């Protein structure tokens, strides 16, 4: 057993085990997600993350060691964020067509998505570190990571918040749409994208392509607006 442990530690000097485990867990999580009939309450990323966390716990790999190795993989987040320019550019005709309602709705909606959560957490006595981690809760992950680091938050806590927010958004949009009889795909998609980032956008594509397009649009614009707005708001609030 001790020889196995020493083999493990020798292997962990390179980032290879972390990279291999991440890819394997991602593919296994996707497979499991499809096998379970694509449940809304447990997205594929969450399943993959649970599998990965269990594996790390069983093999006794320290999270910080894993994180250091996986950092090589996360280096790709930068180019992947830049790549979001392509779908954004492809949405431009829609933005031009409906620029007025979008311009009116987006800034208050995206700002309130952050401030409701910050306000509630502050009232309940959360620390500034926690507040900074909750602020980008409705922002798509690659952009949210940048924002949290700027604000002085904790990335893993922010990621957990992102996950809960995404799943909750899908549930509440379904509930409120039924309650008020809202069927306009443009409205449903936009609300899902602004509040529920990637998880909401995936759900919107299940409703229809129009909803999906408006969700991508809402997600992209919320990301850009929050990336510009939150660091400035933080500076003004003196946090």
């Amino acid at each position, binding site marked *: 057993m001790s020889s196995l442990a020493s083999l493990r530690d020798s292997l962990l000097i390179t980032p290879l085990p972390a990279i291999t485990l991440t890819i394997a867990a991602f593919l296994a999580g996707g497979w499991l997600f499809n096998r379970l009939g694509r449940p809304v309450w447990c997205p594929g990323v969450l399943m993959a993350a649970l599998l990965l966390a269990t594996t790390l716990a069983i093999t006794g790999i320290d999270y910080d060691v894993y994180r250091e190795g996986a950092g090589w993989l996360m280096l790709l987040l930068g180019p992947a964020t830049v790549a979001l320019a392509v779908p954004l550019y492809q949405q431009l005709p829609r933005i031009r067509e409906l620029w007025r309602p979008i311009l009116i709705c987006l800034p208050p909606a995206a700002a309130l998505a952050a401030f409701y959560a910050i306000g509630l957490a502050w009232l309940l006595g959360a620390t500034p570190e926690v507040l900074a981690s*909750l602020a980008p809760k409705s922002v798509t992950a690659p952009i949210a990571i940048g924002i949290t680091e700027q604000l002085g938050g904790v990335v893993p806590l922010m990621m957990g918040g992102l996950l809960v927010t995404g799943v909750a958004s899908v549930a509440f949009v379904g509930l409120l749409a039924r309650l008020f009889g809202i069927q306009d*795909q443009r409205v449903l998609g936009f609300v899902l994208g602004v*509040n529920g980032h990637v998880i909401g956008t995936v759900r919107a594509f299940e409703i229809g392509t129009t909803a999906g397009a408006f969700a991508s649009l809402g997600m992209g614009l919320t990301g850009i607006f929050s990336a510009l707005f939150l660091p400035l708001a933080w500076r003004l609030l003196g946090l």
Partner: protein
Amino acid sequence: MLELRGFLWLTGFLLLGEALVIWLGLPISSGVIGMLALTSWLILRGHVSVAIKAASQPLITLLAMLIMPGVVGVFFIVDAFAGQWLAVGVALILGTLASVATTFWFMQRFMPRETSEGRAEQ
């Protein structure tokens, strides 16, 4: 080589974003600046080149995997934030309910009614 050429465009714009962030002292991540710069470039060009498309699509599909190392971390910080979890949970759930309701209200109020053409499309 197509994907590689597209990837070079992406890293080039990321580098440009990084340079702008350092140079202007912007409080924004270099990825976002790179994305905005590439969007402006695409608008100027009037189309997306095959190479940029070929590199972007797989990267965007892989986004979920790239964020996993961060997501996993939440299971290892449970102790570090003991006493804060009630605040976090209430803020996330009630905050999301409130913001979903607000966004619905804004959209219902300001979005022009769907045309019959738009409905037929669905």
